């Protein structure tokens, strides 16, 4: 389907400069350099050129030109993605939506916000705070990541179990299609007639359209939030305690688990007062009305004690709550301090398999000769193993990738999936062949073609070409064995 562009770089730049400010059609390597990767910096590519439009009409004209000439288009928000979904195409355009950074309207009575796609996630809640409202999904990158990117990745965060993912918090999106049409999908009503294209677009990683406006739902800020911290002497007990809370009928605002490595690293970094000798730590936040929080906190403390917690501590002030969360929120950079590099994975598993998965990961860690720290959105089963490595040691990144691939395969084997919230992008494209068969992958390709008949939007990402899948499926086992042997020799 994909053929070579029928236009040269110079011609394309000239055509774009006819309607986009010349300074914002970037063609020189030095200025394009910052666009060569997103948050997954191991995967880099220089684009043909970068363009920063400032109106929807300009986006439309860019798409029409690229469609006509078969030029790939990679839409980009803040570039914080963790699967190389915004990695440029060397024959294509990076379409940065950085200039679309205005909050268009907040309607406090209807509890909605109309946003340009380049608005930062956190900025929405900051602006809504004056009305006692906030925006639910809060990915860890929320200071920098944009709502357009959140739609593309169906971003989550720590509050998903109770407040949902991006897909649950959208009313409508305006997109420019590959062919240059502007369409609004969804409405101010909660449900629309016909097939749910809004859900289909959410999490489509920039393969189906370019988001140019987003309308989100806002939630009333809870009256109170308190967090219970519980330490356990085994991962199994902590895992059981997660089930215990949920069986009890409590849906926490956030429920996070950290393993021993992460506890010590985070405590060193943030001085949060974590129980450093614990093998697993749970942070359980309950939010709601004063009465509800009071009732549920007491119950949560009791459940944790009954299920063998070695320490239980409940925040008594907003400062203390912030401190307890600080360690968790800094867990990634904290782990970064104990290793030259780390690689953040993102699988999801049914929670009942947590102890098994973590102990298997321990074994693999020894086989591959690489340390792994675990932070985990325990409430919704989303694992973030951080594999520690040193990119300067030849072969160590390759070994890390193989370790990561083995973890993802295990996630699928226990009934989970290869990505909970970071997306497939380039990074996990090979593992798609483990989770889906050829017929399913072909259905994805056909859906893509319905939106983008010539395949110019973010080509080569998210859904693998079938010819590589068979190869990967048969190689995967052999390679896994081979890497194990290599690791043992290195280790």
């Amino acid at each position, binding site marked *: 389907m994909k053929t070579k562009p029928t236009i040269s770089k110079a011609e394309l730049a000239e055509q774009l400069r006819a309607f986009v400010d010349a300074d914002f059609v970037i063609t020189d390597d030095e200025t394009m350099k910052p666009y060569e990767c997103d948050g997954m910096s191991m995967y880099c590519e220089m684009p043909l050129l970068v363009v920063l439009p400032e109106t929807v009409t300009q986006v439309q004209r860019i798409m029409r030109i690229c469609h006509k000439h078969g030029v790939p288009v990679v839409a980009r928000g803040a570039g914080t993605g963790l699967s190389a979904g915004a990695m440029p195409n060397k024959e294509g355009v990076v379409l940065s939506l950085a200039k679309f950074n205005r909050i268009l309207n907040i309607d406090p009575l209807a*509890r909605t916000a109309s946003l340009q796609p380049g608005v930062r996630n956190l900025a929405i809640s900051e602006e809504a705070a004056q009305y*006692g409202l906030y925006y639910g999904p809060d990915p860890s990158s929320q200071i920098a990541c944009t709502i357009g990117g959140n739609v593309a990745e169906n971003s*989550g965060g720590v509050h*998903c179990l109770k407040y949902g*993912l991006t*897909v*649950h918090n959208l009313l409508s999106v305006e997109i420019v*299609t590959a*062919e240059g*049409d502007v*369409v609004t*999908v969804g*409405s101010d*009503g*909660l*449900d*629309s*007639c*016909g*097939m*749910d294209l809004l*859900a*289909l677009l959410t*999490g489509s990683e920039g393969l189906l359209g370019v988001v140019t406006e987003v309308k989100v739902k806002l939630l*009333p*800020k809870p*009256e109170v939030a308190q967090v219970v911290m519980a330490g356990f002497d085994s991962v199994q007990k902590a895992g059981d305690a997660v089930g215990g809370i949920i*069986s009890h*009928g*409590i*849906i926490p605002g956030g429920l996070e688990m950290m393993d021993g490595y992460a506890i010590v690293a985070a405590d060193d970094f943030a001085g949060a007062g974590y129980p450093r000798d614990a093998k697993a730590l749970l942070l359980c936040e309950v939010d*709601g*009305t004063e*009465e509800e929080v*009071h*009732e549920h906190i007491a119950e949560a403390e009791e459940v944790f004690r009954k299920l063998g917690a070695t320490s239980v501590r409940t925040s008594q002030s907003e400062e203390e709550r912030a401190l307890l969360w600080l360690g968790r929120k800094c867990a990634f950079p904290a782990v970064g301090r104990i290793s030259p590099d780390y690689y953040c994975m993102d699988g*999801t598993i*049914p*929670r*009942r398999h947590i102890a098994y998965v973590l102990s298997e990961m321990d074994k693999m860690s020894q086989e591959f000769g690489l340390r792994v720290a675990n932070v985990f*959105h325990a409430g*919704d*089963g*989303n694992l973030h193993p951080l594999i520690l490595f040193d990119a300067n040691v030849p072969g160590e990144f390759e070994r890390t990738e193989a370790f990561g691939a083995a973890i993802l395969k295990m996630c699928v084997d226990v009934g989970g*999936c290869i*990505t*909970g*919230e970071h*997306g497939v992008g380039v990074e*996990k494209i090979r593992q*798609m062949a483990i*989770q889906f068969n050829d017929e*399913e992958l072909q*259905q994805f390709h*056909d859906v893509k*073609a*319905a*939106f983008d008949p010539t395949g110019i939007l973010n080509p080569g990402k*998210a*859904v693998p070409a079938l010819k590589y899948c068979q190869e990967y499926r048969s190689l995967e086992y052999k390679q896994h064995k081979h890497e194990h042997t290599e690791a043992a020799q290195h280790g």
Partner: protein
Amino acid sequence: MADISQQLQEQVLQARAGGEKLNIVGGNTKAFIGREPSADAGTLNVSEHTGIVDYHPVELVMTVRAGTPLADIEAVLAEQGQALHFEPPHFGPESTIGGTLACNLSGPARPWTGSVRDQVLGIRLINGKGEHLRFGGEVMKNVAGYDVSRLQAGALGTLGLITEISLKVMPSPAASMTLVQEVGMDEVLHYMNSRSAEPKPITAACWVDGKVYLRLSGAKTAVEATAEKWSGEVMEAGAEFWRLVQDMQHDFFTGSDEALWRFSVNSTAANPAIEGDWFIDWAGSQRWFRGTGQLSDMEPLARVAGGQVGLFRGGDRSGEVMHSQPDALKRIQQRVKNSFDPDGIFNPGRLYSWM
């Protein structure tokens, strides 16, 4: 409690080979939804494809075959103190989970707890090529591949036969209470929206016959404290009232044969000024209208109110019954349909005449 997916798959393959069309039928309680079923099509009956495939209360996830009646699912959940939070309408004991998803039907709690589409985690689907495919999964967070599962919500079976659904389920609230008071239609939208903007455990808000009904659910202490603070009489028969609303058995729905229109609009938009009776649900987001008119008359009213309208029940079902689509979206939807069902086997013309 049987898996007849292979039989269903064979029937699709036969239809394909023979150039036939198929109308999908489950419990056959929602035959009134959508355009008139095609008279030339055979029947693909999924009602025997029943049973709970997997249920782990601790995971808050249930996987169930599409022909399973809602009532069976709810009975199993209730044993574990759990429920379907989207409160699906039952149009009879035979109403199934598959039909509920295909029609994207949710009850009074929808603005607060999400819709059936929101709770779907994964599906299995037989497409028009007779392939039995699996999308999504059984975990809350899963962004691998396009969200084909939620795409089915509202598609009325036009993309394929849903055979299995994995759903998020939730604990039943410990306590519930309903407050009722008289409020005029002029003020009620502001009232319901203001209450919804407060951080209180509100889980339903509707208006009918000059009265507003608010439901509070959650921790007992929180429900009681909020009821104390807010105005309105505690309604003893609150649970029964909401059940009638959920199943569309309230007098408003059963008391007339006139066409029933569903407006899905901005919750704060002024109510359309047309002659007829209104039932305002979802704190203003969903408004039911009983009265005569054409879809072409209703659409501009819905558009002004920021949303869409469809003919839900009764009226002329030989023409279009769903809000019209702009050309670019119509084109995309036809192509999406074609990608799943290239020979146009499933539910021809049920959603739109052009699909």
